C-alpha cells in the first residue's frame, strides 16, 4: 500500500471497515446487486437505485472518480474510499482493478440488513 494517501480521498475507511466493505461487495456481486466501474456507478446514482458507493483511494489520477462524491451528495447516498483498487477488483470478482462500484437496492434481498448496517458505519465517518 502507498504510504501517502490523496487528501481528497475522504472519507477513507480504516482496515477493519475496509474488510467489512469488501465482504459485502463480494456478496452483492454474487446476488447481482453490484455495478462495477465509474460509468455504471454514475448511472445508478442518476437513476436513484444506489445504496452506497465505494471508490479506490489509490486511483491515478484520482480526479476521474471525484464526480461520484458530488453526485452521491446530491442523491444523499453514502460513499466511502478504500485503500486499494486491486483489492476492490478482486472483491467485485473481476481480474482487472476496479476504481469504483455501487451496491444497488433490492427490496426483499437477503443482504438488506447487512447493507443497512454498513451504510450506518459509512455515514459515521462523515460526522
Amino acid at each position, binding site marked *: 500500500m502507498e504510504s501517502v494517501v490523496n487528501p481528497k480521498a475522504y472519507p477513507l475507511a480504516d482496515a477493519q471497515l475496509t474488510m467489512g466493505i469488501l465482504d459485502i461487495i463480494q456478496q452483492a456481486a454474487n446476488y447481482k446487486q453490484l455495478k462495477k466501474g465509474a460509468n455504471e456507478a454514475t448511472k445508478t446514482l442518476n437513476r436513484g437505485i444506489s445504496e452506497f458507493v465505494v471508490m479506490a483511494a489509490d486511483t491515478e*489520477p484520482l480526479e476521474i472518480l471525484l464526480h461520484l462524491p458530488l453526485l452521491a451528495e446530491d442523491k444523499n447516498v453514502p460513499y466511502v474510499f478504500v485503500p486499494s483498487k486491486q483489492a476492490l477488483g478482486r472483491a467485485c470478482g473481476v481480474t482487472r482493478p476496479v476504481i469504483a462500484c455501487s451496491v444497488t437496492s433490492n427490496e426483499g434481498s437477503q443482504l438488506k440488513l447487512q447493507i443497512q448496517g454498513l451504510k450506518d458505519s459509512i455515514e459515521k465517518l462523515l460526522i
Partner: protein
Amino acid sequence: MLVLFETPAGFALFKVLDEGKLDKVEDLWKEFTTSDSARKVVELKAFNKFENTSDALSAATLIIDSKPSKGLRKFLQKHCEGETLAVADSKLGNAIKEKLKIDCLHNSAVMELMRGLRNQLTELITGLGAQDLGPMSLGLSHSLSRYKLKFSPEKVDTMIIQAIGLLDDLDKELNTYAMRVREWYGWHFPELTKIVTDNIQYAKVVKMMGNRTNAVNLDFSEILSDEELETQLKEAAVISMGTEVSDLDLSNIRELCDQVLALSEYRAQLYDYLKSRMNTIAPNLTALVGELVGARLIAHGGSLLNLAKQPGSTIQILGAEKALFRALKTKHSTPKYGLIYHASLIGKASQKHKGKISRSLAAKTALAIRYDALGDGEDNSIGTESRLKLETRLQVLEGRELGKSAGSTKGKPKIEVYEKDRKQGAGALTTPAKTYNPAADLVLTEETPKKSELASKKRKHHEVQTEPSAELAEGAVQEDRKKKKKNKESEEAPAAEGDGEKKKKKKSKDVGEEPAVAAAAATEGEKKKKKKKSDADGEGVTTQTEESGKKDKKKKKKRHADDE
C-alpha cells in the same frame, strides 16, 4: 485549552475550565443541556467583533478556504500565547500552526464540544441575543452566496459556452452575408461567381473592383495568388453579360463587403480566443477531440462540471437526443454518435469501425473531462496519451481489414470452373456438325449400284412383268447395305470428335473452331449438288413405264432418308 468558535458576529475565544470532561466524549452533550452547566465547562475569554458586513464576508470567505484572515491572526496572537487551541477545521489548524506557532487540536472531542457551544451560543456570549443572531446569519449567507456567484472557479466555462454559441451564430450569419454579396453583385458581373469560389476573396475583389470595367486596369495579385484566375477575371469582365449598376448601388454593395470582411476577422479572433480558453480550462478534452467539439460538448452539457458527472455512454450520444428517443419509442437501432461525430478520430475511421471508435473515444473523453473539471493542474498528458492509444487501436482495426482482402485469391478456382463450362459448351456445339459429314458420304456410294439395278430391272421388265418378288428382294439387299454404311459412320464419328477436341486444346481461341464448321458446311453443299445432278441424268434416259417405277423407288429412298 482555548476553543476558537466562528459566529456571524465575530470570532469567539472560549477557555475550557474543566478539561477532564473532554475525556468522556459520549457524555459531553449532557453538560450543555442547560446554560448553568455549560458555564461550568467553558467561559468566554475574548470576542473579536466584525466591524461591518464586508469585513464579515472577507473573513468568512477566507475561513471557507481554510485560511486565517489578518484580523484573526492579530486576535489569536494577542490572546493565545502559550495555549493549545481547539479548532473546527484541521486545515485551518495547520495554517494557524504554521503562521503563528500556536499548537492546534482537532478531534472528535473538539467536534462534540463545538456542538455544545453552538447549542448554548446565545447564553454563553453576553450581548448576543437570539433575535440579533438570526438577521446576522441571514445577511452573511446572502453576501457569501452573492460573492460566490460573482467569482467561482467552476463557472469560468460560461465564457466558453457563450463563445461557442456566438461562433456558430457567426458562421451562419457570415454565410448568409457572403451569399447575398454574390447574388447582389452577380447582377452586374455573373461570371465572377465561378471564377472566384472563396467567399472572403470574392468580397475583397468586389470591394477593390467596384464597376467591372475597372478590372482591366487593376492588380489583383494581392487578393488572388493564382495569375490564371486574374487573367480569367479580366477577360470575363470585358465580355460580361451582366447589367449596369449605378455608383449608389456599388457603394451599398461595398458596404456589405465591408461587413463580410469585418465579420470574418472577428470570427477568426473569436476562434483564437476560444482555443486559448479551451486549452486553459479543459486541456485534456481539447487534446482528445479538438477545441470546437470540446466546446460544443461543454455547451450542450450546461457546464464542465455537469459534463463531468455524465457517464461515457451519455457523452457518446450527446447531441442526438431526438434520434435516441425516436429509436427507443419505435424500438429501432439507437444512434452511435452525437456531437463527437465531428472529432477527427472518428473522421479517420472507416464506416465499418466508426461505431467502435466512437464508443472508445467517448469513454476516454469522459475520463479527460473529469480530470479537467475536478483536477487542479493544467496538464494535458491524459488527453495526449488517450489519443495515442485510440489511434493505435484504429490502426489495428484497419490492419485486420487488409488481411481479409488478401483472401480474394480463393476466388480464382471459380473462374477456372467457369472456363471449363465454356469449353464443354463449345464441344457440344461442334458435335452435330461433324456427325453430319458421314451421312453425306452415303449418297456417293449408292449412285453406282443404282445404275446397275436400273439395267437389271429393264431386262426383267422385258422378260416377265409379273415378278414383283424379285423387286422386293432387291430392296431388302439395298437396306442391308445402308445399315452397314451407317455402322461405319458411327465408328468414324467419335474419332472425328476426338480430333476436334485435340484441336481445341491446342488452340484455346474460338477462331480455330470456325474454319472446321465452315469446311463441314461446304462439303455438305457439294454432296447435295451431286445428288441433284444424278437425279437429272436418270430422268432423261427413262421411258414412261420406267418413270413410274423410278418414282416409287424415289419415294422409298425418301422414306429411308427420313428414317435416318
